[in-house]
């Protein structure tokens, strides 16, 4: 890695080829950015502007009414809080469970741990979306639908295999020597894990937090199945209700999109450094 950085700073030659690449990537980025710009642009337009003015023009003024309507229609104070609770609790528990499991799997040569690893991997090969029906049925039979606990347990169950996989591939970055000396000093396994290993896993935990957060935050299929009570609904489910109203007034829906995407973008921005490093660990090690 370090070599690469040195090299990159050394080869700052800007040739014709580089210029062509630069132009190409600029065009690509603009194309990728158009839908986002349009969403933001339209979320500030009044209904009158929607019909009368040029559709591609910028709004005449920042019209916040759409955001206020979206806030009411989404029942934002409830749905936002629900989504936040489900996401935050699931992700924290996942980080704890997966980190501990992965560490045990990496350190023990006993058959049980080898079996566990392969067992967890089944969950990566079979995405839970393919099993939404039986997961829903078992949730229903255990009385876990329409309950906060049920939703959280379901997100943990469906996220655990990816988490273990991710964390295990990070384990080689944790030096065994530190743990051994702590064990010799008489620390229990638990203490060694929480005081020595976990602090070293920060980048891995950050990666897991982002990857799982945006999956759970954005989930529609399971959230829609597990919850029918209004007071437990998530943001995405509320948004679908807003989208499916076949009205020509879609500026409210676009304002709702901006509101729903913002938290996850902020989370990504603040943890980006870890994330880019972390999500690629698997890709490099295979």
């Amino acid at each position: 890695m370090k070599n690469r950085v040195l090299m990159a700073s050394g080869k700052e030659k800007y040739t014709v080829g580089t210029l062509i690449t630069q132009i190409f990537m600029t065009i690509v980025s603009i194309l990728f950015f158009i839908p986002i710009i349009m969403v933001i642009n339209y979320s500030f337009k009044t209904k009158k502007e929607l019909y009368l003015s040029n559709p591609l023009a910028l709004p005449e003024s920042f019209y916040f009414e759409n955001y206020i309507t979206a806030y009411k229609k989404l029942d934002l104070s409830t749905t936002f809080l629900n989504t936040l609770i489900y996401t935050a609790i699931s992700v924290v528990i996942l980080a704890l469970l997966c980190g501990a499991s992965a560490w045990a799997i990496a350190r023990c040569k006993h058959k049980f741990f080898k079996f566990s690893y392969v067992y967890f991997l089944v969950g990566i090969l079979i995405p839970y979306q393919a099993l939404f029906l039986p997961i829903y049925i078992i949730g229903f039979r255990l009385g876990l639908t329409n309950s906060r606990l049920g939703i959280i347990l379901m997100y943990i169950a469906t996220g655990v295999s990816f988490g273990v996989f991710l964390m295990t591939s990070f384990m080689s970055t944790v030096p065994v020597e530190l743990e051994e000396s702590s064990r010799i000093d008489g620390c229990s396994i638990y203490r060694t894990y929480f005081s020595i290993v976990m602090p070293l896993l920060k980048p891995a935990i950050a990666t897991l937090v982002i990857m799982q957060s945006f999956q759970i935050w954005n989930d529609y299929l399971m959230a829609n199945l597990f919850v029918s009570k209004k007071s437990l609904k998530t943001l995405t489910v509320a948004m679908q209700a807003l989208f499916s109203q076949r009205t020509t007034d879609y500026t409210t829906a676009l304002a709702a999109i901006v509101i729903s995407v913002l938290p996850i973008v902020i989370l990504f921005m603040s943890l980006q450094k870890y994330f880019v490093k972390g999500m690629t660990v698997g890709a490099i090690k295979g």
Partner: protein
Amino acid sequence: MRKSTLNRKALIQYVSLVLPGFIIFTIGLIIPIILAFFYSLTSWNGMTAEKPFVGMENYVKFFKDPYVRDAWVFTLKFTIYNTIIQNVFALLFAVALDSSIRLKKIYRTVIFMPCLISALVVGFIWLRMYSNILPALNKLLGTNINFLLFGDGKTVLTGLLIANNWQWIGYWMLIYLAALQSIPSELYESASIDGASPFRKFINVTVPMLAPAFTICIVGITTGSLKVYELMVSSTGGGPGRASTSIIYHIYNTAISGRQYGYGSAMSIMLVLILLLVAMIQVVFLKKREVQL
């Protein structure tokens, strides 16, 4: 040394670290598979207490059902196109970002950003792009391009592919980019000394070194595309007609809306088997290539 410290007590403690996840995973994912298999042998409607046993009838029906066939044809087309398009463009953009161009960070962020958005929302954004925003371009440019891609059974796949690729190319691009950046520069230097052209360097150094990234991206995109569902919920609703009904969409319609839990379970089991098969074939095939290279 490690073996001797691993006494019984420590072993039990280690096991206790794995156990909670193990149990939740078993109840939440493994038991459902087993349960689904049993339900698939019945004609249960999801409501009644009794579940009439019908043997393999649901599976026989599965192979004869034209709706199931259409759903699979759509899903497979979507998957094959996605796997090709996403890999090609993700790698292309990654190579471009690995060169000495400026503003890399901005390009990277812009292209990556869409994957943070829910597929449900992506579907809605593109529905509005095609039906309201892009047609305005026609007026502006005086052209007559048909942007209503979701309105016609022939173009709906193209429309969904554009939306899906807009969302995911950036994600796989980041993986390729990291893999590119981890290739030791010595390899390129020695290739230069041997007089290799940039193209030969790409084929003989870059591509082999990217083998693990290829495995991750190809398997990830394929399995991801086979389970497409949310993208259609707010955009096409599986239509027009049934033109964009994916397999998960069809299971949802059959089981949840149509109250055929037994038959829906059989469809789920078949999807699981096919996903497992595809992933295994790809992993074995791609890993073999990794070793050879």
